[in-house]
């Protein structure tokens, strides 16, 4: 029987990693990821988790050690945030084309400068094109479930890709939530042992990471692209299987009162729950509004998104990052691209807010829906709206 306990989300993530029985954890501390790796170190120190904890000297080496360990065939986990993710960026790019199924939790945090330890999605956006599968959790339960799913997705022989599970720093990492933990025996049934097909092994030598001259580079990159595109089907399939095993279903685009709604608000991450309260209140007032939450950032769920807002006239997209000098918020950009060549498409209104840990309240979301609807009708001189800024 699954047990439900009140627990800090970071600790819960470490416990979920423990349930997945990894062989190697290589990590470097950075706020707000610290509690995750501290608890993993503690589990290893107490003999509750049989794994090698490699306390590396930087995030660059954390991801490098993860490459080595995953290439050796070991189940591998790490976690980081913000500057840490930026420092390891070069290495993050290597994992996907080398088909190494590393799982990494990202405690989303703003990128410096100015220095901020609080949440936004600028770090998540900075690794958008690294070829990793990117899943975004909205609450503690989703973190636990998706950490377990991430190992199964990444290690699936049809996928063999690294997976990031994003959770908002502090908004999730440092809060205590009621979380249901699956039993070890159930997880063992759901998650078979890691079987990396061609590990570094003297009995069967392989060369990994040869350089590619122009004659083969395009083919190598196209193979990588076909691979991640094909992975969406497997992600959805594994979420279905997770639901069968544990009774919680995940979708690439989660809907909330959005079917048939004329105005739809789109969010990503923990603010989605606050936004839901606002939407509930607006629906109760009789307004024709709904909400969708993006659960899968890469591969981008184009079909699911189009289907989810097929009846909407206005789609208000909240980004927690700025694409400096760009067209609008980075998520909104992609949403616009997803609809540009569609015969029937909603008017997409881009909002950027919640930067560097600034809260958006229920009233704030109501306001955003109101303003967004207005902009959709009247237009705006701005390419996008920055929410709540003092000018």
């Amino acid at each position, binding site marked *: 029987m699954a047990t439900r306990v009140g627990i800090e989300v970071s600790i819960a993530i470490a416990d979920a990693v423990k349930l997945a029985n990894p062989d190697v954890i290589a990590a470097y501390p950075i706020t707000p990821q610290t509690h995750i790796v501290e608890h993993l170190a503690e589990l290893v120190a107490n003999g509750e988790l049989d794994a090698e904890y490699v306390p590396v000297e930087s995030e660059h080496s954390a991801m490098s050690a993860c490459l*080595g360990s995953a*290439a050796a065939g070991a189940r591998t986990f790490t976690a980081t945030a913000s500057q840490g993710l930026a420092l390891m960026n070069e*290495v993050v790019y290597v994992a996907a084309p080398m088909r190494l199924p590393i799982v990494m939790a990202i405690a989303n945090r703003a990128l410096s400068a100015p220095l901020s330890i609080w949440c936004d999605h600028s770090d998540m956006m900075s690794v958008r094109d690294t070829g990793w599968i990117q899943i975004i959790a909205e609450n503690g339960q989703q973190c636990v479930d998706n950490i377990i799913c991430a190992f199964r997705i990444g290690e699936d022989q049809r996928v063999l890709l690294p997976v990031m599970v994003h959770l908002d720093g502090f908004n999730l990492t440092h809060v205590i939530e009621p979380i249901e933990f699956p039993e070890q025996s159930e997880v063992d049934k759901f998650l078979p042992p890691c079987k990396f097909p061609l590990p570094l092994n003297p009995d069967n030598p392989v060369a990994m990471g040869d350089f590619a001259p122009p004659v083969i580079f395009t083919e190598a990159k196209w193979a990588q692209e076909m691979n991640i595109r094909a992975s969406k089907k497997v992600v959805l399939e594994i979420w279905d299987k997770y639901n069968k095993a544990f009774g919680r279903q995940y979708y690439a685009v989660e809907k909330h009162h959005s079917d048939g709604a004329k105005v739809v608000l789109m969010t990503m991450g923990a603010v989605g729950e606050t936004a839901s309260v606002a939407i509930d209140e607006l629906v109760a007032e009789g307004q024709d509004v709904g909400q969708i939450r993006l659960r899968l950032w890469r591969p981008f769920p184009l079909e699911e998104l189009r289907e989810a807002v097929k009846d909407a006239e206005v789609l208000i997209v909240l980004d927690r990052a700025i694409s400096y000098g760009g067209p609008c918020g980075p998520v909104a950009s992609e949403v616009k691209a997803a609809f540009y060549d569609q015969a029937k498409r909603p008017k997409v209104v881009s909002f950027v807010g919640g930067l560097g840990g600034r809260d958006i309240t229920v009233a704030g979301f109501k306001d955003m829906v109101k303003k967004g609807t207005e902009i959709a009708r009247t237009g705006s001189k701005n390419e996008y709206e920055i929410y709540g800024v003092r000018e």
Partner: protein
Amino acid sequence: MEKYAVYVPRLIKKRENFAPGHRACIGCGEALAVRMAFKALDNNVIVANATGCIEIVASQLPFTTWHLPWIHTLFENPAAVASGIEAGYKAMKRKGMAVPENTKVVAIGGDGATSDIGLQAISGALERGHDFTYICFDNEAYMNTGIQRSSATPFGAATTTSPAGKHSFGQFTWKKNMPEIAAAHNIPYVATATHGYPFDLMAKVRKAADTPGPAYVHILSVCPTGWRSATDTVNRQSRLAVQTGVFPLYEVENGVYKMSIDLPKLRPVKDYLKIQGRFRHLSDDLIQQIQDRVELEYQKILEKANNVTKRAKSKSKTGAAKASAR
């Protein structure tokens, strides 16, 4: 001794872990050194390679020169990648998963990957005590990108980013002492070697790989392309580096220094410098500066090794009673 030289090659395996057919320059001392280093080991080895000459000449999709499991990811991280491989093997073995016994992990990189961009990752891996060997194949500049200076480029050498000119005599800094930096981590084994002394090189690599815990081997590898020297003299240049004291051969085993060859008298550094185009602009005054510095550095190493000998002698006089007290 001459008969020994005829006999000894028969003791070495025929098997090549680093096969011929790669694209290194004619007379590449590094390719020689890599071949010897991995000939010294069996086939129970996993190689983590930094970006650089050897990575480029020995790998190109879909070919490889390596008969060993080999991974290249980036420039500055082979020590960290090796950490991960070692940790992975350790955990999988402990947990009863099917992995081969007694697998050695060897990380390799050039002098740029080692003494510049990868120094932090190497320091981390040595400090954490992973059971692996790091080998630096030092050709004293960024040769792969076109002979740019590194912190391992010797004083006075002209490179493309430390050119000799009206206002410059080439590299104006002294070579970073990587073996001493490695030794400062108090790791069980540090050694220097060069391909001009092949049996010494092979014995040291073997010893390094067999040492439990981290080991570091620094191998001077002559680069005729970058050193502007004749391709048929690479081994002579390598031996002259040792005989002039420019590159002393020694081992540091658990903190104990030991000279590898007995040189009653050092040859003048000029013998080494004059056959390399990268030094041809040097004035007598600069050559003298190099001579003085080489003697000073050589003496430092010699004293460390001699002190050990002295201590060992005095210990044997006073008996072993004190030795066991820690």
